[in-house]
């Protein structure tokens, strides 16, 4: 199975460890991973700011990079959602092929690879941040607004990790306030939302906050660091790829 690894631009530039973990994890799960070298960005920052008409160049570049693989997998719910909903090409059959074969990492592991187990150990107390685009857009987990059965693909995978204690904030799926360019154009609300999310995780005495979207984590990380908090943010791929020693206490 040939998997094209799509690493969003800001992960490539600022969080290479997330991309490395994603790649190593997929390889552990027996995928043939290729990283097309001329990829840049999915175009989401422009489109969400009202400039989808400027996305032709990004779209073209994306199609050039990701045609011809079986699946495209990315450690970012929101970039995947953008491609799924808005990628276009002069030859729409090419963009449609990509749109129907692109997956967020955890949904790919759960739905396509359907692995019964993951060998990973991460003996820490971890707070789950539910990222909106992965959840409400890609349906990675159930939504608190709907009268429907509960499930969570990311939590299902974290449940396989030895030593990990997963906690939920009081408001299980409230937005963290990142919102792309919202984080600067609506700075006051964005920061307030982030502070509120972080404080609910603090109340759970977590060591880490994790999630499927680096953007949300980057926003909360910025707030945690400013506050001098000891809580760290970590992408779910880094946990699933982790083999920390577990000390058994009596």
């Amino acid at each position, binding site marked *: 199975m040939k998997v094209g690894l799509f690493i969003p631009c800001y992960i490539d530039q600022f969080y290479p460890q997330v991309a490395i973990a994603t790649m190593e994890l997929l390889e552990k799960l027996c995928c043939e991973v290729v990283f097309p070298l001329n990829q840049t960005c999915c175009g989401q920052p*422009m489109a*969400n700011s009202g400039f989808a008409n400027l996305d032709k160049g990004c779209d073209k570049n994306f199609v050039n990079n990701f045609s011809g693989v079986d699946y495209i997998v990315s450690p970012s719910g929101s970039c995947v959602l953008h491609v799924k909903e808005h990628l276009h090409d002069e030859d729409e059959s090419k963009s449609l092929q990509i749109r129907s074969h692109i997956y967020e990492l955890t949904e790919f592991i759960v739905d396509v690879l359907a692995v019964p187990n993951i060998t990973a150990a991460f003996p820490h107390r971890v707070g789950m941040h539910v990222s909106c685009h992965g959840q409400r857009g890609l349906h990675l987990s159930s939504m608190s*607004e709907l009268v429907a059965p509960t499930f969570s693909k990311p939590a299902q995978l974290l449940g396989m990790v030895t030593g990990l204690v997963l906690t939920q904030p009081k408001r299980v799926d409230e937005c963290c306030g990142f919102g792309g360019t919202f984080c600067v154009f609506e700075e006051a609300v964005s920061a307030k939302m982030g502070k509120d999310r972080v404080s609910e995780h603090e109340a759970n005495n977590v060591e880490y906050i994790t999630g499927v979207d680096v953007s949300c984590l980057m926003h909360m990380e910025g707030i945690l660091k400013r506050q001098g908090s000891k809580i760290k943010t970590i992408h779910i791929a880094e946990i699933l790829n982790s083999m920390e020693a577990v000390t058994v206490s009596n």
Partner: protein
Amino acid sequence: MDPRNFNKFYFAPIGATTMSHSKAAGVFIQDEPRTDWHDETLWFVREKRDKAVRQVPEWEQLRELASGIKDHTLSNLDNYLSAFEKNALANGVKVHWAADAAEHNDIILQIIRENNVLRIVKSKSMLTEECHLNPFLIEHGVEVVDTDLGERIVQFRNEPPSHIVLPAIHLKKQDVSQTFHEHLGTEAGNNDPQYLAEAARIHLRDKFIQSQLAITGVNFAVAETGGFVVCTNEGNADMGTHAADIHIACMGIEKIIPRAEHLSVFLRLLARSATGQPITTYSSHFNRPRVGQQMHIVIVDNGRTKQLGRPDFRNSLKCIRCAACFNTCPVYRRSGGHSYHTAVAGPIGSILNPNLDMKANADLPFASTLCGSCSNVCPVKIDIHVQLWKWRQVLTNEGYAPTGKKIAMGGMAFVLAHPSIYRIAGKMGRWVLRSLPFITNNKTLNPWYKQREMPTPPKQSFRDWYIKNKR
């Protein structure tokens, strides 16, 4: 923010906005404890809604059904409106048609003049807020008293409502106490809700008795019967209309439902979505005037047919004004209704108001993270967050994007479309962050840095690592 600042806005025509959402929100959040209180109060309503809807196993089917009925009605609106008019006329109701807010206000003023009315009571109607009826009537020397408790409070304070169901939700009981002390002569500093409610009740009783004309909104107008339903929790619509000789009901054209039996869908959805109640305390059915009474219905377009003609946005007209999207919106809860500078605030307001005035409301579709919670709570399944995204595109294409943003986005799109330029720019950016952090670590020039640290830039990108380690 000093509520008195809103006077100017409140009495200004639509379009003369004073402060953008982001700016007004920034002012609102300056009082952080109050912002927390506002957020928690509305979140409590959202939680009540969650509990209530979980009591109804067929909730999602009901939403689907309601959405379907509304879609069908919007596609046949002309027929249902004519049927409604015909049946209402047969019931002895006078029907008026208003193309816009000005016509709506003129029609009401004419009825007032014809009947020499001096005193009016009004129960809650967001349409009359949208049309700025109160200032118009006061300008023409007519006393108009809002009888919904929350609306009366904000009316005393000369403020617009900050929420379509809970108009005074931005105020604490201390604020209400002070307002009543100033306007009703209640004891200064007495914050007892019972005492304050009693004072309002006594005050409003007089107004009900003295008034000659009652104005109400309409929640649902039934095409097959020509009747309409008004939902309140305080019974103030009934008090007003029963005491007055003239009843004027104002409705937007989208309030129509085809049949009376459809009320069994909408009444179950409305109050649960709005406040978590199974049904509003009063669901008052008005069919015909009582003997000696005049009953008028004013049916208003005011931009609705224009919205109906926009394929991407027409289904926003399905809205039944429950405000569930307000209560769930993390942005609304932390910025307050006044920051939206329009009669209908919140997520639904942000997709309705650009239709009325794109220039004045170009900021609203951006007052969202596109989290999608609004669409999930919407009882008639309006794809609110999708429409917010689409309005952003329309506003940009129509030239309403700020120049700075246009330049930044153009530059960004160029860089990201060219892999080699992107790689150089990334490398330079990371170098600047590492070596010259003072450039980005500036709270005035870099909004990110105001309350957040910048990410720590690594020496090499993933691509650099990949080439070194995998190739």
